[in-house]
């Protein structure tokens, strides 16, 4: 017979077990490199991984495209993924790093061929403050925005108290990813930015 005490014990037990499953699931690493492209292109069925060496010439081209945005980190190489669904090309997933206040934030930016942001996902967050930017409620505001936008708080994205520097880092990172796509994959193509 299910007494009230047994019912409550079962309920508490289930809750604790449910929590325990996630107890060690979250650290500062939220996505591995393998999971990253799928996080920004969940509809894709295949990804082609490429590693692009960041030569001084490439950096120069990227910086020219980024304008006033100055990266806080120049990576040695960029890992990109070409996302496809059947025969259809969906876009580019680019892994970039930018410093928030003191530590680098690693994230993946999905960019569509029409120069719009498909999605953004945080892979590794290391700062003691500003972690709100990793949540979907915040990141979904980047979807569909043209890469020509500023992505800066109070201009094209909403700000979050305590995360201003992290939002600035995301803006620089998105600009950097878009510049890489333009410089490597779309140079000379029509409709560049």
């Amino acid at each position, binding site marked *: 017979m299910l007494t009230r005490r047994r019912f409550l014990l079962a309920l508490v037990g289930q809750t604790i077990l449910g929590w325990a499953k996630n107890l060690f699931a979250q650290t500062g690493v939220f996505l591995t490199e393998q999971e990253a492209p799928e996080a920004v292109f969940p509809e894709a069925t295949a990804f082609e991984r490429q590693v692009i060496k960041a030569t001084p010439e490439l950096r120069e081209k990227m910086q020219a495209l980024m304008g006033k945005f100055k990266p806080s980190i120049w990576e040695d190489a960029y890992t990109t993924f070409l996302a496809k669904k059947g025969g259809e090309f969906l876009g580019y997933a680019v892994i970039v790093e930018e410093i928030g206040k003191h530590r680098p934030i690693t994230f993946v930016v999905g960019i569509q061929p029409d120069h719009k942001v498909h999605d953004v996902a945080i892979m590794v967050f290391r700062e003691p403050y500003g972690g709100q930017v990793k*949540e979907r409620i915040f990141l979904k505001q980047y979807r569909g925005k043209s890469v020509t936008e500023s992505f800066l708080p109070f201009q094209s994205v909403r700000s979050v108290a305590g995360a201003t520097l992290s939002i600035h880092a995301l803006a620089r990172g998105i600009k950097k990813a878009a510049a890489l796509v333009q410089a490597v994959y779309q140079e000379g193509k029509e409709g560049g930015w």
Partner: protein
Amino acid sequence: MRQLVPMILVLWLLGPLPTRGATLEELEDQVKALNEKIEQMKREQEESKKAEAEPAEEERRPFFQEALERVKVGGYGSIRFESNTLDEVGNTFTFRRFVLTTDAAPADRLKTYFELEFERFQVLEVERTTAPAEGGLKVQQAVEATPGSEIAIEQAWVQYDINDWLKFRGGAVLVPLGRFNIRHDDNLWALPRRSLVDRGVPVLPIPAAWPELGMGFTGDLAGGKLGRLNYELYVMNGATLDAEVEEIIQTREGKRDKLEAEVELRPGRGTAQLDTKDGKAVGTRVAWTPLLGQELGASLYWGRYTPGFLDDEKLLSFGLDGLFSLGPFELEWEYVNTNFSNVGDVATSIARVAREQAVEIEKVDSPDLEVEIEYELAQLAKTKHGYWLELRRRFWPAFLKNTFLGKPFENPQFVAVARWEQAFLDDRVTHVDFTGGTITAFETEDRWVNRITAGLAYKPTPLWAFQLAYEYTWTNRGRSLAEVTNFLPAKPNEDKAHAFLFGVAFGF
């Protein structure tokens, strides 16, 4: 050497053979060339060995980079110029504070954070000499310090991240009462003076930034469409009445010179050593973010505020706060209510222990010097409550884009800001007199302080702010602002003050 012999043979065999009829000079040249080749091979072999023993600079760098990434040093600070209508203030520069911060992450789940504050600080120098003199031992001590200087640990805690929603934190933690105390960095704000509720009056039991030694948990719960919930919950030693001894040496015309020790019993930060009072304090804040840019917070602090040698009396504070943003507009606010239970009983307790409120050596015993010891209860009221409301609008005129204000910054901003604030002190203790362990006088009054501030800040980056502001502060008619604020040294009849402020706040 063993490797060189076969190399020489190989070179000898592969090298051009001396042709029949070669002269002695030609043979010598060939031997010389062979020797050079052998020397070059020797050098290459040595370099290769050396390279194997010592990793290349590129290989060593990741270790150092990793070490540097684990520990980060930063800081923030602020200075201010003030022109005030109060005679005792006039025009002055104030070094508000410089705070050094360090955060380290020795492993993925582990974090430490540290803030060391230098407030109104420039010099602290202690000189002491101990030497025999005049047939005895002479110990001489001199302390040199700038007035109002303070060195304090603002935060020093360790954190173990069990999960996003469960992080253990222990050490000197900021008491989560209201939103200002936990976000008190000067460079985050557009105005160059802290609020009355958190600092100037204050309604907070201890002026911000207020840390206490304790342990507890913090975390974030993402609730999908319901938004995000952040909480902090700590058990701490807690604020307690503490003695502050003020020594006064005064020469007076027509009167006896004065040597006075004034013992002020006022709420102070809890101890960082043995906390002998029975009972600890609890502090918690829950903040709900239903939508981006919106936050609603509720906080509570409860604990004993009397030291172990007095009767147990409790302090209860609660706060409500919020942030509402719409486009370039932000409305931020905070309300705090603090209740000290049975302040009268506390005075009775003190009387019982201290016996005499004031002790003075009579003129007949000391005709030239008046010596006095006096006890006072300071900054206590039955209830203190107040709020501040700050409206901000961010903007950036396009024509400034290519000027020195706009270049080379990513997102320079102007922030127009207005703040309205009120603080109420109900049954504020003004005078306590006791003799022979019994209270003979206990007087209280109700007071209020209002302030309105308007300002403009220029923020070239989020970490820097140049702040310009005008403020008007006033209190009950005919009563001194100095009695109810801790930053305005007003004369007895000065009940209002106008001030122009210019401040620079920075972070790195």
